[in-house]
């Protein structure tokens, strides 16, 4: 149980993917102009991140490591993610049109989202991940990998939703034309990062 809480706190807050590890910044800045699309993007990313961990972790430990071809990981992972996103898109279109309408337009963007490839690379880096969630290096398994993917995704959702709320307010303010767009969004992100910094002190 303590382990479970540790993973949640570490993945969502202390090592938040967006504002602490800087993964998935493109959608964080690009799709955070309004609350609804931010939530849709966040949940779509969470879904893909969880599934990615579920697939890439066994591929790495059961196929690549025994065959001694770890160096193929980048090519294989990006291939898995791209096909996974494509399959999810087709499945959603076929079985759940409502969900497809809510999430569909964000799905193609997810292939090139570094948060997804980032989590796949992070969970196989046993030394680093064990340090992050506070377990012994040897006891890393697929369960931890999938949980980490899920909560890292929820952390991403949290950050992007917070960002969208703040940006809706900031959009109404008169802003210098050179600060409009990306710079002001990054200053807002700067404050979110400061808030998350508090968790690192725990």
């Amino acid at each position, binding site marked *: 149980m303590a382990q479970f809480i540790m993973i949640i706190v570490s993945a969502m807050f202390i090592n938040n993917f967006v504002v602490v590890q800087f*993964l998935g910044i493109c959608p964080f800045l690009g799709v955070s102009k309004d609350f609804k699309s931010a939530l849709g993007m966040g949940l779509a990313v969470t879904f893909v991140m969880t599934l990615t961990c579920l697939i890439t972790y066994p591929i790495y430990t059961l196929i690549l490591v025994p065959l001694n071809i770890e160096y193929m990981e*980048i090519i294989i992972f990006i291939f898995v993610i791209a096909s996974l996103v494509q399959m999810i898109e087709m499945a959603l279109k076929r079985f759940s049109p409502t969900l497809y309408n809510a999430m569909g337009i964000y799905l193609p963007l997810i292939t090139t989202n570094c948060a997804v490839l980032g989590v796949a690379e992070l969970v196989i880096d046993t030394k680093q991940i064990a340090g992050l969630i506070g377990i012994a290096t040897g006891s890393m398994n697929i369960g931890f990998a999938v949980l980490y993917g899920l909560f890292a995704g929820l952390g991403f959702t949290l950050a992007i939703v917070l960002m969208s709320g703040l940006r809706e307010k900031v959009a109404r303010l008169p802003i210098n034309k050179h600060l409009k767009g*990306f710079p002001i969004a990054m200053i807002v992100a700067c404050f979110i990062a400061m808030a998350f910094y508090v968790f690192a002190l725990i």
Partner: protein
Amino acid sequence: MKTNFKKIATDGVITQNPTLKLVLGTCPTLALTTMAMNGIYMGLAVTFVLICSNVLISLLRKLIPSQVRIPAFVLIIATFVTLVRLLLDKLLPDAYEVLGLYLPLIVVNCIILARAESFASKNGVIASATDGLFMGIGFTLALTLMGAFREILGAGAVFGITLWNFQIGFFSSSAGSFFTYALFIAIFSLVSSTISKSKRKKLSRLNGENLTAEV
């Protein structure tokens, strides 16, 4: 068609600077600018991948069917990133250590895919290689400058050499990273708009036009 190399060069480094003007490849920019040296490492790795992928994509541009071009580009880029990773691991272990997770993530760096899509798939080999080189230089310069700025203020040092004993912790934190990037984009936009305005003024004076009419 004659290739305008001067335009490719100024586009890559200044007018279309991938980091400051197009705001592409933001993840490594924010994560690695804590030190100036990181900017150079990351910049070199990205430049290498950019040049190689631009050349190969430009060579294959007539062979790749347009429906599957994006997966094909990603596969080509992933191959070169794997190569860079293996090379760095052997030749520059320091850089390999520092870049860590962000090295495999070059695959999903939007700069490379954007150049493949908008330049290399439409232009000749030499032009594409030049574009890759100067886009890479633009990226490296921006990252190194931001890295130096944050290192000077956050750690009182530059390229690892201590300058003074004065540090503002904010600039080495993740919040400072967002702030520095915002500051650099805003200053870049301010400077470039001032320069283009003064150029326009000079031009209209040369042409003897009425300045107020244009404004």
